[in-house]
């Protein structure tokens, strides 16, 4: 018995009823296409969020200086300078679950280089910050701890600042005056792009925290720092790091049960993980809705196959009379259903991939076509063919030869 025979017979039957075959396939085509487009849109969104998380750094905890209360009016978090560089050093050295801790002292400053000037965010920090944020240099060298200890007037700048001050020239080794103070440019950061909130992350200048405190962003509270960025040793140790920091700072700040804490600890990774999770859920939901259309398409195939079996009862009778076995008839109709769904599946994949490109082209949505989704769609469509084709095929194979022959 020729293995390909049922396929050949099925292909002939489909050719004979070309219009009907096409309309039957339409359900599967649309179903598969929809699954691929929806999964592509969903995973595109998930990947975009994942990329944004990656630009922030991983396993992050943010410590904000506390709120002030004056005359019963409470200002928001970060309004009072309550964290010191000493606190940061203590967190770094005394909390085992903390990998790195870096303070930030931020301020906007006017900077001049040659005949160009630009206003940007100047952040005083320590060398740890760049590793916490997983940010590498495009050129030059990183800040060292001796730069911090001796309050060197050196800076590292982002691409946006460098372009505005130096154009295409290499800024390394050149001077920039920040609030009138001359700084040596030692490093140029790699481009990081926009943050999840849409701000330009490359419009930034980093200087040693000590220099910032003394020369440019000095304020009424010497030694104070702004928010502190902490990286836990691992994702599992995030919660432990959080509690270690809390107890350390409580102790250092002489907190008691009756006093309101003068700082806030926030787990950033958690917030981002939640948004990524919701994007994943959305993508799953989109896929599920599209899968329903696939099942509807499968039922359409079963419907047509049942009609086809009834319509061709006589043909089945003839085939049985001249020696077709039950298995031959079963395979013939099964092959027809599988051929329909697989053909529909392949056209659906083409439509889906085209649709995904069209969506990212017209609407600018990020889409990500995964090979897995395509593979799954193919497996699913042939599975649907077998599943929904089996019942009609078995009905055909189970016919009694004389009844089938007599059928009008």
């Amino acid at each position, binding site marked *: 018995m020729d293995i390909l025979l049922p396929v050949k017979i099925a292909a*002939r039957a489909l050719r004979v009823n070309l219009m009907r075959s096409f309309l039957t396939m339409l359900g599967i085509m649309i179903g598969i296409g929809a699954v691929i487009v929806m999964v592509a849109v969903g995973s595109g969104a998930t990947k975009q969020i994942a990329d944004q998380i990656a630009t922030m750094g991983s396993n992050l905890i943010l410590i904000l200086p506390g709120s002030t209360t004056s005359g019963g009016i409470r200002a928001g978090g970060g309004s009072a300078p309550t964290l010191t560089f000493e606190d940061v050093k203590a967190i770094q050295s005394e909390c085992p679950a903390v990998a790195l801790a870096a303070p930030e002292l931020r301020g906007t400053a006017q900077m001049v280089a040659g005949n160009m000037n630009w206003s940007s965010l100047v952040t005083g920090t320590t060398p740890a910050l760049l590793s916490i944020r997983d940010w590498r240099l495009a050129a030059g060298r990183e800040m060292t701890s001796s730069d911090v200890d001796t309050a060197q007037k050196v800076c590292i700048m982002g691409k946006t600042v460098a372009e505005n001050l130096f154009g295409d020239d290499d800024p390394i080794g050149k001077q920039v005056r920040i609030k009138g103070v001359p700084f040596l440019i030692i490093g140029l950061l790699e481009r990081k792009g926009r943050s999840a909130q849409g701000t330009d992350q490359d419009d930034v200048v980093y200087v040693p925290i000590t220099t910032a405190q003394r020369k440019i962003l000095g304020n009424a509270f010497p030694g104070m720092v702004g928010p502190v960025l902490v990286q836990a040793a691992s994702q599992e140790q995030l919660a432990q790091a959080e509690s270690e920091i809390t107890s350390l700072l409580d102790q250092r700040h002489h907190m008691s049960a009756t006093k309101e804490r003068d700082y806030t600890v926030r787990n950033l990774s958690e917030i981002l993980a939640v948004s990524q999770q919701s994007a994943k859920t959305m993508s799953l939901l989109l896929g599920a809705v599209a899968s329903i259309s696939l099942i509807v398409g499968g039922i359409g195939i079963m419907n047509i196959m049942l009609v086809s079996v009834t319509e061709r009862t*006589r043909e089945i009778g003839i085939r049985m009379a001249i020696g077709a*076995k039950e298995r031959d008839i079963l395979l013939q109709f099964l092959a027809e259903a599988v051929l329909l769904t697989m053909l529909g599946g392949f056209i659906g994949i083409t439509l889906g991939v085209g649709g995904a490109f069209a969506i990212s082209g017209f609407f600018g949505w990020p889409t990500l076509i995964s090979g897995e989704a395509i593979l799954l769609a193919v497996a699913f469509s042939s599975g649907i063919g077998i599943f929904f084709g089996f019942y009609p095929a078995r009905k055909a194979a189970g016919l009694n*030869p004389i009844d089938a022959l007599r059928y009008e």
Partner: protein
Amino acid sequence: MKMGSAMKEVVRIEGITKVYQMGEETVHALRGVSLTVNQGEFVAIMGSSGSGKSTCMHILGCLDRPSSGRYALDGVSVENMSKNELAEIRNKKLGFVFQGFNLLSRTTAAENVELPLVYGGMNAATRRARALEALHMVGLAERAGHLSNQLSGGQQQRVAIARALAGDPALILADEPTGNLDSRMSEEIMDIFKRLNEQGKTIIMVTHEPDIAAHAGRRVTFKDGVIIDDTGPAQTAAKPGA
């Protein structure tokens, strides 16, 4: 038949009965039929509608199973065979010619003739040669590539005969083969059957037309589920009941 005692029995049925349940009513279609057909015979089965001749034909054709009785086809006992084994028997030992031709539509004459060979597992080249040979025997070799629905009724029936011949079966069963044809075409078809019979083919044909039955060497008449008459020029078998 002039083969004497060396004659081979193609069909041997003994005490066949067939009982149907039609709703509340029990129908006794066959009430104990015995018949022996030797190789090379051309038998016409006659009878009015409801006489049991069609039921007998279906049982002879292994399309249906008797309620009781014994049936040996070409020396093989078939009454206890499974559905699949019966399909195999139909494929290898039987050739069918139906009243309504029963060709596959939108399929060429040659492909129709090939069909039993396809299910028999023959390779494409041999099967094509055998199909053309069978079409040649019914005088339709030049129409091999025509679609079945482009052929006249007589031509379609000739294709059906070629299909029955293709597998070189032990027995050809024809169920009212001229029922849908005019008298000129009927003669044509009967000439083919007679020629095939002269070449040694065993043929059993069901018909209710006496002039068609006259072409056969032996005539068996059914009435109310039993054989009431069995006559033929060279027939040596005993009459029913004997």
